């Protein structure tokens, strides 16, 4: 045997790895942006319920974090994303998408406005090259990739505010959704945003990576009596689907990675038209999006409630029960334990939205394949959207 340890090919440890290793009882790991990343820790459904019933933590160290500074930072971002960045107030967060010239989605993410000339952009996939390209013509911008230096932990669920209060973050209950709040933590700065990807009450904690383990221990000590538990990718996927949030690789294919013509999506197709602001100065993809707005999107991302309890993952959708005319496809589907409904997100040809929608669902029963055709009903509201998600002051449970 050689002594070579394959270190360059092994997933790298997250800043919270030491603690997560202890808690990942079944060694259920995958990876995200090169980091070792939990599929689940003990049981995915249990962890899902922790977020709906108590609270859970989710490692967002692998998320890409870019610090964008300088006099031109705001103008540069405003040129890049579809939303009006000048409307974001300091210490506020905004959900944004950015597109290529054809108006097709490159990625989505959040912009944190830290000061007039300082922003943090967070997104799922690396985008240094696109940021550099977007900064062309804006001399007073510096872009720093902070992904490896900032440790970040999502804390989500009805008891999440109680955890932060027990940590001594005075006044955190008054933090509004999408606000950024700063606290002292062991002599360093702890940033707490009221943001998340679960559709429930929740926060994201941001700190220098050197204090990651201290932060973890403090959070877990404070959360011990209010049901804190880590959750991984599987629970996240359930939670975000109930909240109606899109995920790359499911609802959209990143435009810069798309090979086939129009196998990527526009914001309008993803039902994110509200993120596109034509009143602001020119931005990337504007012309194409304006045209699409006039013409209407070919597809529309739609929330479906499907009869029965068989998840409609990967199903085709049809305009009649006979399943002759295909009108779309399911992007994500599952049985929702909280809503007690068979839910799905689906891309449906816009012109067929007013008619009947039927899903052809395949499922297995003891090695035999079965199929059924189920009626789908369009839902306007997210499948899970309790009042506590938006309420300020936030409740203790």
């Amino acid at each position, binding site marked *: 045997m050689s002594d070579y340890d394959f270190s360059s090919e092994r997933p790298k440890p997250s800043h919270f790895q030491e603690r997560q290793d202890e808690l990942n009882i*079944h060694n259920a790991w995958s990876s995200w942006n090169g980091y070792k990343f939990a599929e689940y820790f*003990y*049981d995915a*459904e*249990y962890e899902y*319920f922790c977020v*709906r*019933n*108590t609270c859970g933590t989710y490692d967002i160290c692998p998320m890409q974090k870019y610090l964008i500074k300088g006099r031109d930072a705001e103008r540069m971002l405003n040129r890049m994303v579809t939303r009006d960045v000048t409307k974001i107030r300091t210490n506020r967060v905004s959900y944004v998408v950015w597109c290529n010239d054809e108006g097709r989605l490159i990625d989505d993410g959040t912009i944190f406005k830290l000061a007039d000339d300082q922003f943090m952009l967070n997104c799922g996939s690396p985008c240094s090259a696109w940021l550099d390209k977007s900064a062309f013509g804006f001399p007073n911008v510096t872009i720093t990739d902070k992904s490896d230096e900032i440790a970040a932990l999502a804390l989500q669920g*009805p*008891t999440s505010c*109680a955890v932060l209060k*027990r940590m001594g973050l005075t006044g955190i209950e008054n933090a509004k959704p999408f606000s950024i709040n700063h606290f002292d933590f062991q002599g360093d700065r702890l940033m707490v945003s009221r943001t998340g990807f679960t559709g429930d009450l929740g926060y994201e904690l941001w700190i220098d990576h050197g204090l990651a383990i201290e932060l973890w221990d403090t959070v877990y000590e404070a959360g011990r*009596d*209010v*049901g804190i538990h880590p959750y991984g990718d599987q629970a996240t996927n359930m939670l975000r689907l109930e909240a109606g949030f899109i995920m790359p690789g499911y609802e959209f294919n990143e435009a810069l990675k798309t090979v086939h013509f129009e196998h990527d999506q526009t914001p309008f197709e993803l039902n994110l038209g509200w993120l596109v602001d034509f009143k602001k100065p020119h931005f990337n993809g504007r012309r194409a999006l304006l045209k699409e707005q006039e013409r209407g999107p070919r597809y529309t991302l739609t929330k479906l409630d499907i*009869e*029965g*309890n*068989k998840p409609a993952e990967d199903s085709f959708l049809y305009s009649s029960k006979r399943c002759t005319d295909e009108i779309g496809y399911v992007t994500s589907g599952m*049985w929702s*334990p*909280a*809503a*007690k*409904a068979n839910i799905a997100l689906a891309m449906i040809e816009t012109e067929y939205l007013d008619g009947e929608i039927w899903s052809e669902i395949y*499922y297995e*029963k003891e090695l035999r394949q*079965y199929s*059924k055709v189920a009626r789908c009903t369009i839902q306007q509201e997210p499948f*899970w959207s309790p009042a506590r998600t938006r309420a300020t002051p936030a409740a203790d*449970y």
Partner: protein
Amino acid sequence: MKRYDAIVIGAGHNGLTNAAYLAKAGLDVLVVEKNDYIGGAAVSRELHEGWTYSNCSYVCSLMRQAIHRDLDLSRHGLILVPYLGSVNYDDDGNTLIAYNSEEAAYLELKRHSKHDADSMFRFQADLTRYARLIRKTLLRTPPDPTSFRTRDIHELLFLAKQFWSLGEKEIYEYVRFFTLSAVDFLEDYFENELIKQSKASSGIIGTALGVYSPGSSYILLHHVMGDVDGSIGAWGLARGGMGAISNAIASAFQSFGGEIRTNAGVSQILVEGGKAVGVVLDNGDEIRARVVVSNLDAKRTFTQIIDKNDLPLGIYEKAKNFKIRGSSGKVNIALSGLPKFSNVPDNAYVNRGGLELTGSLETMERAYDCWKRGRFSDDPYIEGVIPSAWDPTVAPPGKHWMSNFIQYCPAELADGPWTPEKRDLFGQTVIDKIARYCPGFKDLIVHVEVRTPHEIEQEIGLTEGNIFQGELTIDQLFFNRPFPGYAQYRMPLKHLYMCGSSTHPGGGVSSACGANAAREILIDLKRPNSVPADDFYDE
């Protein structure tokens, strides 16, 4: 004076479900409830400041998802959270842990018996097969086997088809299964005592039968055929306690325009010309309606609130002899901290869930002997759950409460009526037994509520405190429930219906009885059906 379309007597979860479906179909519905709170036995009560007990039913697995979904109970505030793991103790303090993961559960069984660990696969497959068949009948009205009406024949054919799909060998086994004792059934699979007793205990919960009594195998099935989100056999807690279920159904009912009146016990069902026409309340008020629906048990309905002379011949006697013997008690304990039980690892996934003090098969049978002699068991079977370890809303952070279900405790004692002293002695027996497995338990106690069948009957109105509104033995199941010939929710008086657990499919927080009854009432009133079919398990 206003005349309602329907009056439902009793705001238990089935009464509320029934009312909700009638109101959803456009009827003007009033629910009257004797207590100043709603929920019946699916109730959350703060009896000590800061602690909320599910002081009757405490866990849930039979709640029909089709109803939960159809009435949009999640939007009305209901969330059912499964809890993991349980620990079973024998008399010597040895433990058998039910782990959540299949692999860990297998290894734990193997620690006790290699044979039984392997045999568990066959046991689970057989039980699942039996459960699947019963589950399909839950949201259906039992057919009348003597009727030639198209609908009854259709339903009988449906049943026959389900039976035939089992295969010839399994049909024999299935029929046999209904008459077996829990132990006889288990003997076919297991050799290890602790494993056997851990399964047998489900066969006696809420029932005046022992683990060796014929018929207890069905009770076992009744307790494991439920599910939480499709994982069969799993049990859930309602966030906020079991009252959250009733409250959500009540909220759905009110959103359809329904009306609930509390502090409104019914003293009598008004009968005119052989037809139920309304109710008289305890305060003398008369309220009239086109139909009257009783959520009370069969015995209470026909022997307490209907004049015997209003009933057709023989019904009073049938009701009087309806088997509804009280056999269970409940001890709810507020605790200043999480109790630490002996011989169980400090594993938060298993030591906060079910705690089964089964002792041995003999211990459980002796506990039953006490009941037969009119005494509460001196060494009872206890099923404990600590809801606060899962639900942040029912006790202050770091504090807990433990629900203890006790088998056996009789409704009537051989040495005279229940007194507060005897009740407390019963509670002490239970606490002493728990403390045997949890040294230091007594130091954690903040508040105790002891409920014998006597208290349960007085407060909730369940005759003899029987948790199922009548025993789940084959003579009182399916088309025999509550009485042969009256299993389709229509009672011997015209315009009188029953919708509680005395009807098919029996006890448990399922909402199925109430929904099935609503379907029948709507047929009679020539209204379109508003009750969903249980389309979840037909594939």
